[in-house]
């Protein structure tokens, strides 16, 4: 039975002062401009809005996961938030050993989880599909590209959705927009091999531009900053290149090249995290997975901001239609990497 219920009685505000929400990052750290950072920001929001205490542990390597989660258990956390599939086993074990503590894990779910674990997962492909369609419709050269940090499901789900969106556009418009950097069928493509090396992101992006792509979607955390640098350079060089950002709205968060960010495939983790904590402080914790979709707004396509004019109104309305079709299930966005609940 969910054990945290006792703590739930009484007024939330008074309770909140004792409540401790804790987070353990995976090896990307809290400054990864990706899921660690978003989750961390969610916790920070909870700290501000709900007045809870927070603790954080940044993992440097996989060997730190166990000790970090352990340290959090020792620190009497009410809720321990872990980030990424790599922490799955550790979370599962710690949850089983500490039934009185609640856990939440981002981007991972496991049927063997005890019922004090809440998975927070995203069907990112849905939003990426829209981005793929928008990119295909906007591309001048008829070539768009994507690359990843590593060949892992949380990355390739973006790429799969993007690929499907491009395909859908081609089918609808009988067009022939090409996608470089990812082949959905063979699940093979361009990866820089890590989430740190911005230089490689830049080199890859320049390669794509040289091969004729004009819209690039990096799915590699901070490595994407290298793509922005490349795109700035290419535009200075007279080319017309754009970027599709991921995770958050790059126009707000990337800190540069805003004018070249066409749109972003957003995974609104912060909100979900804050929600989960809020429910827990209210004593209403439940372990059914939270799945972010277009429908519940967990994933979304960001506005076009400065490049609004570059996207035709037709395309915009088509995107609306597609979005509805995805929500209704008329369009099925499938990815090997889609979360299995």
């Amino acid at each position, binding site marked *: 039975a969910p054990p945290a219920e006792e703590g739930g009685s009484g007024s939330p505000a008074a309770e909140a002062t004792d409540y401790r929400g804790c987070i353990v990052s995976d090896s990307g750290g809290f400054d990864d401009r990706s899921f660690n950072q978003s989750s961390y920001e969610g916790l920070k929001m909870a700290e501000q809005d709900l007045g809870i205490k927070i603790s954080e542990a940044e993992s440097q390597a*996989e*060997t730190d996961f166990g000790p970090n989660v352990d340290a959090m258990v020792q620190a009497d956390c009410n809720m321990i938030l872990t980030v990424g599939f790599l922490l799955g*086993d550790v979370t599962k074990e710690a949850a089983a050993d500490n039934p009185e503590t609640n856990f939440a894990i981002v981007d991972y779910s496991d049927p063997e989880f005890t019922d004090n674990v809440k998975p927070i997962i995203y069907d990112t492909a849905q939003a990426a599909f829209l981005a793929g369609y928008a990119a295909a419709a906007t591309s001048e050269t008829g070539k768009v590209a994507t690359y990843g940090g590593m060949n892992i499901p949380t990355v390739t789900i973006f790429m799969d959705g993007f690929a499907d969106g491009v395909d859908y556009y081609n089918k609808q418009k009988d067009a022939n927009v090409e996608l470089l950097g990812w082949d959905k069928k063979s699940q093979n493509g361009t990866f820089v091999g890590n989430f740190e090396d911005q230089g490689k992101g830049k080199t890859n992006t320049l390669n794509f531009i040289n091969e004729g792509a004009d819209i690039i979607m990096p799915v590699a955390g901070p490595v994407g900053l290298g793509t922005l640098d490349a795109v700035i350079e290419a535009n200075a060089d007279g080319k017309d290149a754009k970027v599709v950002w991921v995770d958050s709205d790059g126009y707000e968060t990337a800190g540069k090249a805003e004018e070249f960010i066409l749109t972003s495939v957003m995974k609104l983790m912060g909100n979900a995290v804050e929600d989960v904590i809020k429910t827990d402080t209210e004593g209403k914790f439940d372990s059914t997975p939270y799945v972010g979709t277009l429908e519940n707004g967990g994933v979304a396509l960001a506005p076009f901001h400065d490049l609004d004019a570059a996207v035709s109104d037709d395309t915009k309305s088509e995107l609306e239609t597609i979005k509805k079709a995805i929500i209704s299930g008329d369009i099925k966005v499938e990815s090997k990497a889609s979360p*299995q609940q």
Partner: protein
Amino acid sequence: MQRIVTGNALVSVLAVVLALIAGGILIALTNEEVARTSSYFFARPQDMLGAAWTAASEAYIALFQGSVFNSDGSTFARMIYPLTQTLTVATPLICAALGVALAFRAGLFNIGAQGQIIIGATLAAWVGFSWHLPVGLHLLLVILAGIVGGALWGGLVGLLKAKTGAHEVIVSIMLNYVAINLVLYLLTIPAFQRPGSTNPISPQLDETAMYPPLFGDTFRLHWGFIVAILATFFAWWLLNRSTIGFELRAVGSNPHAARTAGISVTKGYVIVMVLAGALAGLAGTAQVAGTEQVLTAGVAASFGFDAITVALLGRSTPWGTFAAGVLFGAFRAGGVTMQTNTGTAIDIVLVVQSLIVLFIAAPPLVRTIFRLPEPGQLTAKPRKTATTGGAA
């Protein structure tokens, strides 16, 4: 008395003290409270100094509590838990560092421990989760697989060096990258993935394939640590008491004389790299069959690189390496606690560790700083240091 004052032990202690002071200064300088109080430093300097002291000392206390003894622990088990944690982290570090040290003694600079750990861990994990065998036998085969994997990867370096003269530094660096990409690939194929998942993470190893816990389930410390002790003993015996070790040391300190004495230098290179790889592979088993229990791309953490520093700090002797491994394990384990308890970035541990090694390696510097008298013996003989490392 004089000997104690100027002796090595004191220098080592002072080296640690110096490194901790330097790290403390860094912690204090970047502390927010210190920054705040420094704005009125000239009005009330004691505020800032107090804040600095608090910042540094709290961090170090947490470091100690996380690595040796936690006085706040609720039970005795919780109190000594940090120590066992230190030994757990030290286990793979010791094994891999022994491999690096062994290679150093034969005059080879093995930067490839990282790759050797990875391949060892991969093979061991595969045997661990895809074979299903009885207790005892299974673990034995897992260990063997790890050893074989590492030995293959290390042996390749030795073989290329022996047959073509390819520099071991280049080859071992390159093989690290090949290894990581290999495991990245393997983790995308179903044979290595969990059923029904496409995450690059292997299934858990069978219970029968894992090192049993050493002190029960409360502690993470597992029998891998005993294996590390045995490995250290083995390395010591091998180096100092066996004919192979004799050959390796001869090849390492004077290949010309070794050749003239009928010892095959090239064979020595292959043997030592096989052994070095085997030890690194053993470190891989400590990861997959001990602490992590699964195979992921990050299974080797940074043990392969830390191992180099550990081996150097241990002066490439087996027991020295063991001690250095435990010290580094303590820093690593304590660093985690320090970070969670005081918010001090764990990178400071790297700074302190490396300063310790530097200071210990340069006793005259420490003596100068503390104005200690020079020891009587001054005729330091220049030792060939190009590749033999601290073969002392």
